[in-house]
């Protein structure tokens, strides 16, 4: 579907996007756990309750992200297989993957 030169370019795009997305993920996670856990402004320092909450929040979100990733991958693959089968029996439809 793509020649080697195109694949190389696409791979570069993927790597750059991964880097940007990772940074977004990181800052997003920080904001999420801040919003969910931090409500006590009687002092500048984090209370031990808040610290524990942050730890659990981080763990939880990472595990959630991982699980969604697994299900997403499975369902995405199923979807692509179904579309491939549909295309084989009806060759005139447009190739729109997710539509």
């Amino acid at each position, binding site marked *: 579907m*793509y020649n080697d030169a*195109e694949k*190389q370019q696409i791979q570069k795009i993927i790597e750059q*996007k991964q880097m940007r997305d990772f940074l977004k993920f990181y800052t997003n996670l920080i904001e999420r756990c801040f919003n969910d856990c931090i409500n006590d402004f009687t002092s500048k320092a984090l209370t031990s309750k808040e610290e524990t909450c942050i730890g659990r929040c981080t763990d939880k979100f990472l595990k959630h*992200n991982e699980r969604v990733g697994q299900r*997403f991958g499975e369902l995405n693959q199923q979807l692509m297989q179904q579309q491939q089968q549909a295309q084989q029996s009806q060759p005139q439809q447009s190739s*729109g993957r*997710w*539509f």
Partner: protein
Amino acid sequence: MSFYPFGGGSSGGGSSGGGSSQQQAVNAQNVAMAENELEMITDTFYRIVDSCYKKCIPPKYIEGELNKGESVCIDRCVAKYFEVNTKVGEALQKRGQQAGVGGAVTGFGA
């Protein structure tokens, strides 16, 4: 795709021998299409993560693990999101055939 936790599918392995690829023409449109598809899939993934977190995980943080209820909720949430994705896509396509795609999407007459 090492960062994205959904791995699999899409443009597979790395490029083969460096020498030959220098002489091949790069169809910019092909690459742009692949990039668009990548954007759409990863954007959908992030929306699913966000939506299902809101719907399934109460911000109580009693522990750092997902309990059974939360896990099951996540599985079902992702499955339903995919269903919605398909249904909306079909509905859009039907409207598109009836009205002409530009009219249906932007609301302006043909």
